């Protein structure tokens, strides 16, 4: 098993009037090579689940095991050896004041010790250029430009590349196309699918777009109020339609489904 989440409970502001139970005993087993789409309404706990895996905070109870190693109490930086992330906000994944090549150089050492060797090495530049060329955005000629100069879509594509330069055991994507316009969003999604397939990555992708959730990945998980309420994979998932998801979703909310709703919110 690549990732085992067992009975994860996570409160925010525990014991105060603002107490929120963000994860209420969520369990999930992710196999090597699984590409899991995660859907659910606002506040369902999707981001909290991914943040728990990444180690932004420790769960109140439950365990997180990656490739047989219990990482529940590991700090975020240590888990970077196993996983990489792309955030919803394009600004979060790259260092704005650093150049493109510096960002790539940092990503190419994910999980390794930083030494006093030169940060960007000559021989690396050629590799960076080749890898940037695969994005087809012309970034290969802009190695020395600051990442802060790039558009949101370009930055997100760069982050995607950075997240997969060193092959991660698990790739975490949290609404990573939500801040982009529809066309750019589709491009980044295609890039995501392509990279995940080429490298046979294990990935978890949160999205609000049910079409995306159905098209991408071999597995689909729906969350509600901090729990996983639906988990389908393989052929069963292939047969799934937006309407099925809608019905399922409004059933747990105690509402009836009406056709004009296209997004899970």
């Amino acid at each position, binding site marked *: 098993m690549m990732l085992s989440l067992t009975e994860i409970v996570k409160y925010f502001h525990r014991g105060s009037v603002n107490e929120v139970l963000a994860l209420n005993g969520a369990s999930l087993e992710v196999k090597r090579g699984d590409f899991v789409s995660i859907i659910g309404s606002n506040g369902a706990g999707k981001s909290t689940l991914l943040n728990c895996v990444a180690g932004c905070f420790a769960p109140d109870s439950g365990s997180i095991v990656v490739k047989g190693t219990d990482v529940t109490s590991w700090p975020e930086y240590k888990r970077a050896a196993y996983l990489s992330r792309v955030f919803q906000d394009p600004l979060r994944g*790259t*260092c704005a004041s650093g150049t493109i090549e510096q960002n790539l150089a*940092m*990503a190419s*050492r994910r999980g390794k010790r930083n030494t006093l060797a030169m940060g*960007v090495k000559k021989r690396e530049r050629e590799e960076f250029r080749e890898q940037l060329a695969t994005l087809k955005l012309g970034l290969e000629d802009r190695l020395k430009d600051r990442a802060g100069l790039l558009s949101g879509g370009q930055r997100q594509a760069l982050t995607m590349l950075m997240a997969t330069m060193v092959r991660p055991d698990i790739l975490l994507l949290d609404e990573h196309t939500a801040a982009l316009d529809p066309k750019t969003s589709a491009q980044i999604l295609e890039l995501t699918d392509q990279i995940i397939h080429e490298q046979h990555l294990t990935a978890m992708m949160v999205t609000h777009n049910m079409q995306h959730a159905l098209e991408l990945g071999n597995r689909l998980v729906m969350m509600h109020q901090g729990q996983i309420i639906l988990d389908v994979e393989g052929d069963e998932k292939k047969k799934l339609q937006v309407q099925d998801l809608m019905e399922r979703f409004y059933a747990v909310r105690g509402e009836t489904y009406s056709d004009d709703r296209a997004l899970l919110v």
Partner: protein
Amino acid sequence: MTTYAFLGALEQGCAYGLMVLGVYLTFRVLDFPDLTVDGSLPMGAAVSAVAITNGVDPFVALFIAMGGGFIAGAVTGFLNTKLKILHLLASILTMIALYSINIRIMGRPNMTLLGQDTVLTPLLNLGLTPSVAAPVLFSGFCILVVILLIWFLHTEFGLAMLATGDNRQMITSQGVNTDFMIIFGVGLSNALVALSGALIAQNQGAADVNMGVGTIVAGLASVIIGETLVGCRTITRALIAAFIGSILYRLAIAFALSAKLGAFRVTPSDLNLITAILVVAALTAPKLKQRWAR
């Protein structure tokens, strides 16, 4: 301004230049406003003065002073990252504590180094006058440190430190322990500030527990003057700018002190006010410019 005042300003600019480079590291690289410097500057002075009067070689005394400064900065970093105290407050706490510690180090609030060998002695033995020897030696120190910092900030480790100040989330997800980076970076910064204090004490022949008052403001003013007049497009340029800013700041101060407006004269005690106003102006100028541009 007399030649004498000019050389004096140059000498001060170089001696305080190392402090300014330290302030640049925390303020600009780590985005960590660090007031520890008001305490670590006199700490460097005190440590080196005590070491020298105990027969330690003046150059070795500089290294001991740097060690002391590093520990002081690391304590601030620790308070901030591990005990979750706001960076400004953490640095104020260390600064206040250093006041007591510095008096303990010296055994009294101030001490003189009259008659002792200092780092300047070898140059004076070559026949240089003190007003030439000091700027030469201190600028040599600054240039060396600028070169070392340019190199350091281009290494893998240095890049990770830059990223820690810019985007902590990003560099954490690359596997860098940002707590360590901050503790080390603030330590390194204060090691430079303490080195600066040690040189100043050896140059003026005395260490005083109050000599650090206003260090942070002078440091910020120097950094900002350098950025404005020299620019900061690249790290290399920004570091050189910080050093030049230190000299320009001391020249500006010397100029202000020599100026006369009718019966009004600027006295040294006015300098903190002038510097504070200068920093406020420099910090708000870019925002005002933006507002006018709209």
